[in-house]
């Protein structure tokens, strides 16, 4: 019972490089989310999806793109990485109801040099 799995767990990039973070969930959840966590700022929502083929902007979407081609996967892309995107990224998923808890992955630590 894997829950929410994030790949990779760690990554170091140079400024200007691109990469994709993968989130996979095996709970058949409709909703999926990408957050970034920075010291003293809690979690901030980057993008989210309310179902396969849909995406929407969150609080801090600039510099990121997402895709939800399959219900179980939610990809977060950085087209041209910047040092300001150094952070810990969390993926979460939930049933399509606001009162249901979000289930989180263990995070991806990303450093941009």
């Amino acid at each position: 019972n894997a829950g929410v799995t994030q790949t990779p767990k760690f990554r170091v990039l140079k400024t200007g490089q691109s990469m994709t973070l993968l989130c996979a969930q095996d709970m058949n959840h409709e909703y999926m989310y990408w957050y970034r966590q920075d010291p003293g700022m809690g979690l901030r929502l980057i993008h989210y999806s309310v179902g396969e083929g849909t995406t929407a902007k969150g609080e801090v979407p600039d510099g990121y793109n997402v895709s939800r081609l399959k219900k179980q996967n939610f990809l977060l892309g950085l087209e041209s990485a910047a040092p300001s995107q150094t952070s810990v990224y969390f993926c979460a998923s939930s049933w399509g109801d606001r009162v249901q808890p979000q289930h989180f992955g263990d995070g991806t630590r990303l450093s941009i040099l």
Partner: protein
Amino acid sequence: AQSVTQLDSQVPVFEEAPVELRCNYSSSVSVYLFWYVQYPNQGLQLLLKYLSGSTLVKGINGFEAEFNKSQTSFHLRKPSVHISDTAEYFCAVIKPGTSGSRLTFGEGTQLTVNP
């Protein structure tokens, strides 16, 4: 828009002592409230939630929280903490009807339990 403020960034306590982690929210309408816990190098886990009804909510690991509408607070308490409770705790809020079940998180409170 709603916002969440966690009043203490760090709370050090001794083992078996009581603890209270404070959370205030601002919203012009009713909200749902949550507490999540994050252990080192892990994602967040739900501790408890308030949706409606009794203002005292009990969660996992002996934690409870009290919703106070007049003070717009949702403080988390535990009567006797253990070393294993050392973690970061996040208060979160969502307004009913918000598209996509999007939570707004507070800044987090690091609870450190010392022997």
